[in-house]
């Protein structure tokens, strides 16, 4: 058995047997689910209702402006911009006499803001009211007819198909968005969690003064590489366990939670990142979106393969750099912080790019960020679910993968040079200039 394998095995076993590993593996999915459930529940229960007083100079809005569960309108006479609060309204809308040409400005006065969603809904309502009024006034269509047309005309639905030569494959923007987003977040998190674990492991060896004992038995590169692969294997194990656990929890949730609750979930609410994606996923699953159909029609195999490839590639690319930093610093975690910054910045930056790329997977930013190895692991995973070779041509995928492989060979080589010297150095923290010398000095 090779020495590197022994090191990998030790790194893997000591971590997997650790209580922290078991706790984080089994608790994290539970915490994650509780977090999403909590976010969704809060959304459902605390939906605010706004009552808006309207002062209309035209006289027809009371007939056309329609309220709903979130927004209602109060046309009581005697309400003005001073006493609307006494009438139980949260805002007052002043609609002046509409001009025959040009835009007329309606004013909304409030103490408590309506929020983005309701403001835009209010805008739409006013617009609809004006349209309805005009149709009724200027054509012979009756009110009743107009209302029924509005209801009956909602009979179309857009399905998207990815054009792949002679055949077309059904695709779903929603699922591409969700898978892209979730993959991006996962790779981002795993890179950080396990990259930092590599760094801590190296620091531990250095501060425990075992580094020199080790490098008199194995080459420093083997020691570093064994650690990286061992911890990477822990990452994969944990990830697979999460997939299994989340799958099981999802399965149970579907069986237990009533279908209605799921279909009522809001999708476009102003929620942040993961919660939005997760809610969308739950809703998509329950509101007519057939997940099994999706699995058959989307190239799930390719997505899984690419996820594993980019996870491993990204992890190797960054963990080597984390190892180099770990070898250069001493006990003080503060020192590590400052040296880590140049490594964490590109990762965080990739994450930001990823959030843009899931919305627009074909733009130039998406293309380049998914090819350059610094950002490709996170960004490419946001694009692949949108379609290969449609959105992501084969040459881009190939180039991105090849560059990532070259990239991690490069960072590993570089890190190995720094590691070899750094791990035996104690005392002053080296500067970047000194580490650069370690890396490029011929011996």
């Amino acid at each position, binding site marked *: *058995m090779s*020495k590197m394998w*022994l*090191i990998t095995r*030790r790194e893997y076993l*000591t971590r997997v047997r650790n209580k922290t590993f078991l706790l984080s593996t089994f608790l994290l999915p539970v915490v994650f689910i509780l977090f999403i459930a909590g976010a969704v529940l809060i959304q459902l229960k605390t939906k605010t209702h706004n009552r808006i007083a309207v002062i209309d100079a035209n006289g027809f809005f009371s007939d056309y402006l329609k309220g709903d569960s979130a927004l209602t309108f109060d046309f009581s006479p005697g309400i003005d911009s001073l006493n609307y609060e006494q009438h139980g309204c949260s805002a007052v809308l002043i609609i002046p006499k509409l001009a025959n040409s040009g835009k007329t400005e309606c004013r909304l006065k409030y103490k408590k803001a309506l929020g983005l969603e309701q403001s835009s809904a209010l805008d739409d309502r006013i617009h609809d009211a004006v349209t309805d009024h005009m149709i009724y006034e200027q054509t012979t269509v009756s009110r009743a007819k107009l209302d029924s047309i509005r209801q009956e005309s909602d009979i179309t639905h857009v399905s998207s198909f990815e054009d792949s030569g002679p055949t077309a494959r059904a695709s779903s923007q929603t699922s591409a968005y969700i898978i892209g987003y979730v993959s991006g977040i996962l790779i981002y998190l795993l890179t950080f969690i396990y990259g930092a674990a590599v760094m801590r492991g190296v620091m*531990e*060896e250095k501060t*425990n*003064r*075992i*580094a*020199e*004992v*080790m*490098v*008199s*038995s*194995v*080459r*420093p590169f083997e020691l570093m590489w064994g650690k990286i692969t061992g911890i990477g294997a822990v990452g994969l194990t944990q990830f697979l366990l999460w997939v299994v656990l989340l799958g099981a929890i999802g399965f149970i949730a579907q069986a237990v939670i009533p279908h209605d609750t799921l279909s009522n979930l809001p999708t476009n609410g102003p929620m942040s990142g993961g919660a939005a994606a997760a809610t969308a996923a739950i809703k998509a699953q329950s509101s007519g979106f057939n997940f099994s159909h999706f699995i058959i029609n989307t190239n799930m195999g390719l997505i899984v393969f690419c996820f594993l490839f980019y996870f491993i590639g990204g992890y190797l690319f960054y963990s080597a750099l984390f190892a180099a930093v770990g070898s250069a610093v001493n006990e003080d975690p503060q020192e590590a912080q400052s040296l880590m910054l140049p490594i964490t910045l590109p990762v965080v930056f990739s994450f930001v790019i990823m959030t843009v790329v899931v919305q627009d997977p074909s733009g130039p930013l998406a293309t380049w960020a998914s090819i350059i190895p610094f950002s490709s692991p996170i960004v490419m995973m946001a694009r692949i679910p949108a379609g290969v070779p449609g959105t992501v041509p084969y040459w881009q995928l190939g180039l991105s993968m090849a560059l990532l492989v070259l990239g991690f060979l490069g960072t590993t080589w570089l890190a190995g040079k720094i590691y070899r*010297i750094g791990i*035996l*150095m*104690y*005392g*002053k923290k*080296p500067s970047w200039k*000194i580490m650069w*010398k*370690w890396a490029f*000095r011929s*011996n």
Partner: protein
Amino acid sequence: MPILEVTDLQKNFATQIAVNKLSFQLDQGSIFGLLGPNGAGKTTLIRMITGIFYPDEGSIRFQGQPFDPARHIIQIGYMPEERGLYKKMKIGEQALYLARLKGLSSQDAMRKVKEWFIKFEMQSWWNKKVEDLSKGMQQKLQFVITVLHEPKLIILDEPFSGLDPVNSNLIKDEIYKLARNGSSIIFSTHRMEQVEEICDHIILMNKGEKILDGSVPGVKQQFKENLFAVGVEGAANPGDNGWKPESPAFEVVGERDSQWIVKISEGYRSNDVLRYFIDNGKGITAFTEILPSLNDIFIRLVEGTPLARQFQAVKSSI
């Protein structure tokens, strides 16, 4: 055939030469003392011998062949001064792991570890973690790990630091035993009395260069100052009765433990001293040559040089 031949070995760091044109030989079964003040280049030299650093110039031959770390490292056991263990790992597992990294098969590793644990009465430690051990216990474990794969060359950097006299003797005995069984030992330390006791051969390094090389008695002879202690009958204190020896053959330089300390003059021999005392009717009770201790030689040789070069500062600018 010498087990290790080092020829013109050189290692440069950015601002200084850490090891400068150093050559020596190490015979099989010998215990070799590598001495020198802090920053003399001992650790750098050892790191080159263990394949951690590559020399810039010169050559190392191991058992007559050019030294190849990948192949020869298995035959070397190195206990560095900066030593440590995985704190959270159990002692037994750790010993097995490190033994296997030295190339032992899992059965061999298990057998050897058990053997040494019994020898050092460490069996009960097997499931303990390193952090639960005292410093001395860790030291013993470290020694076991270093020698357990029966290396041909054992390099021990300050092996007795932190050990009580009982455990020091235990390890000392093992060192002798290993040497008797054909292992060669390089022993690096500042503790001269231990070197005198244990080593057959020493080299003294200063500022990266070898300034002394030889067997322990040979070195002492080389630095002897022709001093003898002479004890004569009937004198509790030789100067008390008013008589003081005077002769062109020697000069009295002091008195110690009821004995005259004399320095023999150029061109005379010890017999001339004895003859003088006999001719003067003094009964001689003792006549011993006073050889310098290694400590004296060490201090004399490195005196006047800054003992601790600012090695740390140099290290970090490599």
